[in-house]
């Protein structure tokens, strides 16, 4: 079942309605499909194309530009090992080698049990806490080889299930705009005047 399921279609429509133009919802909807399926499937891209009225090629063209979208089955936990300068200065390379050894796989692949995908990553915006890694985009700071092994043990034992949702789920909560408070998005062509709170300067003024 890799098209969006009914509840996600409802969510998708809500997301689409937040934008003045439908195509803006493309990336959020691809995230939604990745949350549902763990990775981005062709069927999901076709479905998203239908929902926002573009071609599947447009969805694919945009989605494949962004690194977080994965087009093949991915581990339940995606571990991204930062290797950019600040982390490199404090042992990122050695940590990556250690991680490969612990998991018995090369960066860029998934453990045979399908639990963990390991990959090299670029700067994760936690440079003071080098070396860092992210598990499903949740940071781990100042990681030692021992920390890494403990992390893997904890993931395998399911100890982090509450803290780290499966790959594809970005935030455990989503924005919910209350209908009674929402202003609502308008297509830019349908907006003909300035906002109510702005005093309109008469023509020739200023």
């Amino acid at each position, binding site marked *: 079942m890799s098209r969006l399921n009914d509840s996600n279609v409802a969510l998708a429509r809500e997301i689409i309605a*937040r*934008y*003045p*133009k439908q195509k*803006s919802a*493309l*990336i*959020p909807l*691809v*995230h939604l499909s990745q949350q549902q399926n763990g990775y981005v499937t062709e069927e999901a891209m076709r479905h998203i194309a239908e929902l926002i009225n573009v071609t599947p090629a447009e969805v694919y*063209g*945009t989605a494949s*530009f*962004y*690194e*977080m*979208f994965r087009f093949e089955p991915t581990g339940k936990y995606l571990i*991204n090992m930062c290797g*950019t*300068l*600040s982390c*490199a*200065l*404090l042992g990122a390379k050695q940590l990556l080698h250690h991680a490969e050894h612990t998991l018995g796989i090369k960066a860029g692949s998934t453990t045979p049990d399908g639990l963990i995908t390991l990959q090299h990553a*670029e*700067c*994760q*915006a*936690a*440079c*003071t*806490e080098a070396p860092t890694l*992210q598990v*499903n*985009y*949740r940071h781990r700071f100042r990681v030692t080889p021992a920390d890494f092994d403990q992390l893997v043990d904890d993931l395998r034992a399911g100890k982090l299930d509450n803290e780290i949702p499966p790959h594809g789920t*970005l*935030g455990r*909560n*989503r*924005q*919910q*705009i*209350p209908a009674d*408070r*929402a*202003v609502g*998005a*308008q297509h*830019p062509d349908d*907006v*003909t*005047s*300035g*906002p*109510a*709170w*702005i*005093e309109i300067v008469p023509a020739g003024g*200023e």
Partner: protein
Amino acid sequence: MGAHGTYAWAAGYFDDGDRPQIVTSRFKYDDSYTLDRYHESGGYQGLRKALEMQPAEMADEVKKSTLLGRGGAGFPAGVKWGFTPAGVWPRYLVVNGDESEPGTYKDRLLMELDPHQLIEGCLIACYAAGLSQCFLYIRGEMALAHERVAKALDDAYRAGYIGKNILGNSFSVDIVLHWGAGAYVVGEETALIESLEGERGMPRVKPPYFPAAIGLYGQPTIVNNVETLANLPFIAANGSAAYTAIGTETSPGTRMIAVSGHVKRPGVYEIINGTTTFRDLIYGENFGQGIRDGNELKAFVPGGGSAPWFVADQLDIPFEGRQASSAGSMLGSGAVIVMDDTTDIPAAALTLVKFYAHESCGKCVPCREGGTWLYRILERIVAGNGTDADLDTIREVGQSICPGEMPHAASERLGLDAVPFPYKMTTICFVGPSAYVPVHSAMTLFPEEFAVLVTKREVRSMIPVTAAPVGGE
């Protein structure tokens, strides 16, 4: 968990001394990100003040504050708002929370630890500049920021701060949280807009696509960095004079700087703009506390991975844009990466070259082809398979990306004078030049480290670039 519990450097830092805290004042609380804490600590008072003013008055206040954009270019925010063409509606606010510059993180902290401050800043900007919808674009890889900002937005909607008739006023605006999906280049404002339109995040050419004139959906659009907006509640609540009282005339207020690498206490510090020097930041007891293990400073990146490097000669330069550029670099996005004397300079440069080559969007040929070429040559050199000819090739490829004289710092050791920033470029945005900057800095300031790597001089046979057609003209 607040900054205290998560970040070693935060312990004691926010309670220590009487440094001004404009944007990090709540970081000391474990519940800094909640609406309750925000209310208790003066939250949404700036918005209330703003709503008592005419929008134009509020905009003027921001202009008078000379609040500089914190995304990297350092352009005054109030002036940027003024570039929107008169009478063209709708206009949008796009919040640039796609922070990904190597060495930099402050926007992530501001979103995770004080999301309401950012939201209040967005509201003040929308009110002042007549922006009728706000899109808060958060870098995809920041799951916690997504959760915290989403919760804060929900709370603020329910509390009447966002949405229809805010605080009973005619002011009405939606703030939509938007997820990025992993692409450094999207931090560039026109690429950010492309991405928000559901496109590949490839920068647009300026001119004509200056967002203030032709931005999101072709409409006037203000793109502001998270930290920039986070300053607005303070300015609205206390007035521009209180803001300009801090720092210098050209660089007022404070700014957040991440100091990472080989310092004893790496951390993200709110410093006084314009007067604090790199020496203060790296060696000061309140900040980095000096080089680790008693080692010597070798070099530092003064403004995020794309900034030309400084060495000890430049330690006394303050965080002031003009002084940094005449010294051959830039302050960029507020990130200092410190390298001590154990650092393998070519290998360090390689990580940054790799970063920018990897992050090229592929639009401009010099960046797409040149960045990768630089990376491959340097990788070969670092692996011990380079030749001196490779060093010339790096400079030549660099010239194809940044023609003319390339900025660099002065070095007394080498007898080098500074070449001021900026460089010329053949690309649309700064990603391409940024792939050349680190290797250029490294080769210029530490030539001896490359010389030992490239001992083999090979006269390579030149390869004709294209075969002439058989029987052609």
